[in-house]
């Protein structure tokens, strides 16, 4: 059992466990922290897959910026475990669990039939994930989407302004 596999299993379990805790834990703050943990685990996977750029971006953008934003909001509203509305409707609770679980089951069962899922994934080698190469591609082939995403940001910005500007 190579080190890579050990790391893989460790990170997977970490990701799954913390993800479960995101769903399970009462206090929103804990949820956020567990989510950050999950993201770290995922970034770890990226590193295993030698997608360094994404790993970094994931940590900086997601775990860093976005999650902190979440945290701020939660703090701002000072939500905590006892202010947390917990699901009274047990029926919905169970049904939700069953539905999600069976979704997993269905897809897994489907994939079991598929032959092409046996292909190998290239671990910690191959250089496509390096910032240099991705940068090259991003600013040559993918320049148009890149530009277009600016429109996305603009609209998001305008939207945020429109929504949160106090009307006088």
């Amino acid at each position: 059992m190579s080190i890579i596999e050990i790391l893989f299993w460790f990170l997977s379990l970490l990701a799954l466990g913390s993800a479960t805790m995101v769903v399970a834990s009462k206090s929103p703050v804990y949820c956020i922290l567990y989510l950050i943990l999950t993201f770290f685990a995922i970034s770890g996977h990226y590193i295993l897959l030698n997608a360094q750029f994404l790993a970094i971006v994931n940590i900086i953008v997601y775990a860093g910026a976005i999650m902190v934003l979440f945290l701020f909001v939660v703090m701002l509203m000072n939500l905590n475990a006892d202010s947390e509305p917990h699901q009274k409707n047990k029926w919905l609770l169970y049904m939700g669990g069953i539905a999600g679980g069976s979704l997993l089951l269905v897809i897994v069962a489907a994939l079991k039939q598929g032959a092409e899922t046996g292909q190998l994934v290239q671990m910690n080698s191959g250089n496509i994930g390096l910032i240099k190469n991705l940068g090259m591609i991003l600013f040559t082939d993918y320049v148009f989407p890149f530009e277009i995403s600016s429109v996305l940001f603009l609209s998001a910005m305008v939207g945020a302004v429109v929504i949160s500007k106090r009307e006088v």
Partner: protein
Amino acid sequence: MNNTLQIVWLIPFLPLVGFLINGLGRNNLSKTLTGIIGSGVILASFLISVFVFFSVKSGNTHVAHYFDFINTPSLKVGFDFQTDQLSTLFLLIITGVGFLIHLYSTSYMHEEKPKDFAKYFSFLNLFIFSMLVLVMGGNYIIMFIGWEGVGLCSYLLIGYWFKNNDYNNAAKKAFIMNRVGDLGFLLAVFWLLSKLGTTDYHQVFALVSDPQKKVLSLFDITGITLLLFVGATGKSAQIPLYTWLPDAMAGPTPVSALIHAATMVTAGIYMIARSNILFTMAPATQSVVAIVGLATAILAATIALKQHDIKKVLAYSTVSQLGYMFLGLGVGAYTGAVFHVMTHAFFKALLFLGAGSVIHSMGGEQDIRNMGGLKKYMSITHLTFLLGCLAIAGMPPFSGFFSKDEILAATFAKNPVWWGIGVLGALMTAFYMFRLYAMTFLGKFRGTRDQEHHLHESPAAITFPLIILAILAVTGGWIGIPELFMHGGHRLEAFLEPIFAQSKEMAVKHEISNASEYLLMGISVLGALVALLYAWNKYSRYQKIEGEETGIGKVLAHKWYIDELYDSVIVKPLQLVAAFLSNVIEKNVIDGFVNGVGKAVNYGSRQIRLLQSGQVGTYVLLMVFGILILFIIQLFL
């Protein structure tokens, strides 16, 4: 086409003109004018008919084609008038008797308002028109036009006093029962059409009687003739459709005389006589006709025994006489039947008009129990009435004797038992007629005071037709004197020979010896005489006795409860079914289903919108279930 008989269109046309003039100008014309026009047109067409008669007698028959009534690839119906011996004879009867009755009416209906008077005459003219179309039609469809037309006129005339609801009911009954018959007639015509593709008498009879190619199977012929006979029963008031005729007496008496005694009710006989070949080729039908006729004759006679309404008695006697005619047709004595039609037209019209004259002077009273002894008040009426009674009772040498005897003779040849029953009926006829006569004219008056001093002989316009008809009733029979009295005495048979020739040779001959024929005559005449005398002296001292009849008498007085039977077997169930359909099936089942769909949609809408609970959680849950279903279908099915 330049046949003199081309002008026969005038015969029905004139009454039509009369109808139009009287009908449209009813508000402006004076009574006298109306009467003159009304009767005048009939007289004119009578004269033309006489001319036509002689033309035909000289052997000139003709089918006049005027225009194509219907002319399509599938159906050709010419508007044709056929003038031959048979139709000519009927023309004479209709226009002749018709004219007399018009004349009679001018005085009889004189109390009416000018407007209604005109209405009455226009209807009467219309009737004559339809009747003429009926007998002159060159094919079954034209005949059917007249056939329905006379039904309509009788409806209008029975309901002439439309304020009285019973009269309207009687009229309606007459029309509807006729319709039942008409349906049979129509179906027969369709049958002919579908088999032969034509309804022209000539072609039909030619095709049918052609021995080479059997165009009609026996089943076809029997079916057709039976259906035709159904039509006849409706029009000519035979079992089972006879009950309308007695009720039809609601109409004015001249109407009863004209339509319900002399002419319209004989349409059935005319029709069968016209299509005699068909009937001769369908022995089964013939026996049916004979039996039905016989049964009707007896049944009606029995009922007539116990009636107290003078017109009702005559009505039932009419039904019974018609029965005899059908018996005649049934046994193949077509000439005899037609002969009896003619004589019956004379004496029955006479009797009705006489009765009318009586009713007139009794101030509308019709119950013979309140009459009696009218002899000394109204002598002409009395005398003519007596002659009429003798004629109908079949006393030689009055007309009734000859015609009825011919029928009975033929019947005996066919089937002695039928003959026996027929004779029995004849006896009853004699009995109830003289019961009627005695109770009306003999004995002493049983009416009220003012009725009594109001009694008077009717004016000339009434008596004149009576006298004419009386003469005819007496002498009318002499054109048909049997062979054994006088060789070649049966001039009518000679005259009608061309019509019935084919049937004659087809039909199986039953010859009966002169001796037995004498015997039969003797029996019937003597029997009738006995019945006659018995009734005479029994009822000439009739006293009014209160209280209901009992036993069989009651049944007879209630006409064998036939009306009640029909009411409970046909009318009431029909009403019930109709009510059930309109209240239950229509409202609840069919419309219920349609509205039910709408309700279902509304209900479904009300339920399904509850899915939209407003809860994001539920929405997502449902979505996930949707996802699952799609996955399962796509991946595992």
